[in-house]
């Protein structure tokens, strides 16, 4: 009983309250309402997912046929009846060389997902082998004061995911370090708020692409004579600058709108300025600050893909772009795989932030 209670608590705390009947199923205490909720909360969504896949399949089928017809038509007008017949036979045979290039079907995407995983295994094995092979030599090089030899092969899809996560966290951290302190200072002083307001209002809606170019102009000059990975620096700074505005605005709002009663308490207790900020104002604006941070993280993840795509910095964004440029017959389905992975990771990041927000916030019931 106690076990099921804690299980329920944990799932609810994580914002997965809908899993409650499922945990009931798990702990062996099933009630009639639970079955009804399972029906409502699980069967219906699963049915809708199946419907989605079905529509997707039908849609891609239709697009495939359109593209095929167009190809045959083209062969007919350009090269005559014989070429058209050959094209028709070629498409029907499933030969890779002449497949119509269009929206991939769910089965193709699933297959690409498997391919990417297999590819990851191959590359990791290769990496491991490389490490073993160069271990002795690297030791010598390090001892001699030289840089060790690193693996320069192609990164796998999973490696790209981790690179992207690294970039997004670096950018998020940068946004946090810039936006929270500035937000607090701006929130405390009405004068500063009105003097910074134009800046915030003008820069908030600027597109990630422009930020990237601006950061590129500055970082390019500053890292001219170092051999650092400037692509990573450029992309994480751009991500930070794009995404910090939500936190900045929320923090300033939270700090400036602290309940007057709490301020009165601080005055009656005669708290010093420092104490007032850290013991009264900050704790009471924490829920709003975290709402801002949550928005920041999801914005950071969203713009990251676009920025990686443009900055040629490794990660999911450049994976998508390279696959698009690549034009292999399974490129399109790999792009769709990346799309799902991006969405799923974005969702998980949001859940993690929600959990942290609930942990630090005094108002446990708040949370969206």
């Amino acid at each position, binding site marked *: 009983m106690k076990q099921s209670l804690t299980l329920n608590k944990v799932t609810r705390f994580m914002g997965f309250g809908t899993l409650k009947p499922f945990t009931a199923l798990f702990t062996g205490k099933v009630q009639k309402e639970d079955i009804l909720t399972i029906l409502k909360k699980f069967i219906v969504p699963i049915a809708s997912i199946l419907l989605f896949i079905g529509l997707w399949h039908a849609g891609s089928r239709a697009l495939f046929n359109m593209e095929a017809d167009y190809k045959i038509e083209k062969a007919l007008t350009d090269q005559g009846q014989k070429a058209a017949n050959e094209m028709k036979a070629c498409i029907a045979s499933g030969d890779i060389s002449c497949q119509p290039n269009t929206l991939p079907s769910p089965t193709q995407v699933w297959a690409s997902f498997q391919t990417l995983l297999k590819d990851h295994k191959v590359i990791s094995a290769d990496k491991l082998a490389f490490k073993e092979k160069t271990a002795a030599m690297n030791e010598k090089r390090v001892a001699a004061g030289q840089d060790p030899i690193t693996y320069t092969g192609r990164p796998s899809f999973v490696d790209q995911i981790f690179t992207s996560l690294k970039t997004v966290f670096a950018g998020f951290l940068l946004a946090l370090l810039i936006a929270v302190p500035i937000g607090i200072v701006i929130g405390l002083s009405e004068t500063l708020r009105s003097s910074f307001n134009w800046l915030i209002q003008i820069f908030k809606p600027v597109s990630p692409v422009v930020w990237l170019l601006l950061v590129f102009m500055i970082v390019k000059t500053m890292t001219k004579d170092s051999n650092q990975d400037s692509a990573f620096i450029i992309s994480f700074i751009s991500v930070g600058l794009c995404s910090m505005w939500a936190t900045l605005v929320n923090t300033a709002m939270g700090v400036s709108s602290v309940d007057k009663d*709490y301020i*009165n308490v601080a*005055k*009656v207790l005669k708290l010093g300025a420092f*104490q007032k900020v850290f013991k009264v104002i900050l*704790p009471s604006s924490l829920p709003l600050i975290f709402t801002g941070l949550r928005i920041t993280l999801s914005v950071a993840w969203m713009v990251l893909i676009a920025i990686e795509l443009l900055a040629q910095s490794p990660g999911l964004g450049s994976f998508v772009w390279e696959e698009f440029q690549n034009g292999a017959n399974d490129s399109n389905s790999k792009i769709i795989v990346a799309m799902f992975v991006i969405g799923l990771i974005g969702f998980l990041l949001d859940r993690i932030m929600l959990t942290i927000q609930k942990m630090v916030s005094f*108002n446990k019931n708040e949370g969206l």
Partner: protein
Amino acid sequence: MSYLELRNICKTYGQGAGSTKVLSNINLKIEEGEFVAIVGFTGSGKTTLVNLINGLLQPTSGEVLFKGNPVVGTSHERGVIFQNYSLLPWLTVGQNVQMAVKEAFPKEKKGEISKRVNNYVEMVGLTPAINKRPKELSGGMRQRVAVARALAMKPEMIIMDEPLGALDALTRGNLQDEILNIWSVDKRTALLITNDVDEGIYMADRIIPLRPGPNATLGPEFKIDIDRPRDKTALNDNPNYKKTRNAIIEYLMDIGNERKSEAKTEYVLPDLSPKSFVA
């Protein structure tokens, strides 16, 4: 020289044409060790008066003297119990009290501070709830925490702004007794702001009605000559109590009627009669 003195206090909010004069010509003297109650209608400027005395607000004209010195800001000498508890929701009961103790006794060591905190939490009977947050407490318990927080700073004077206003009648009665018990231990000067005449008579030495604002002023004072400790049930048969109570209520009713006759807007009601569906 009085312990606390208000001299010709006026308080105006806003400026120019949009300004409202909330208090005017307030004169009040409170002696050391006295328990004074100010009774008034809601919206008559009671909270403004309290904030002037505890130093959160400054009067537009006139001055507030505490032990002969003008009040310019808040001070640990005057403890305040707010109308809406004003506990910090992210701190536990103990931490809320501790915050006040730490500020009032900055030189004390950790052990001494926590001892003080425990003492005051125990005094209001909340030791079992010391690690709970205000949200988990009932209204009465929250108000007790606020009492403990105000007293833990060892103020020389306690200012209570409708401390029991939001509580139900039974809890209210209990807390009145508790506050009186705590007060009777070292008889610190106390100022109670309330809208309940019975509460004022039961607790205070003197009752002063506040004529409702705008331009609120203090009315004539009523002395309460009933021996302490007072017994709530016996009080009902006390002729002295009845007399004072009737006098105060009559006074307040008169003010209320005066206000009504001053109101000039007359609402003309439409002449309506129910329609008969039977015929």
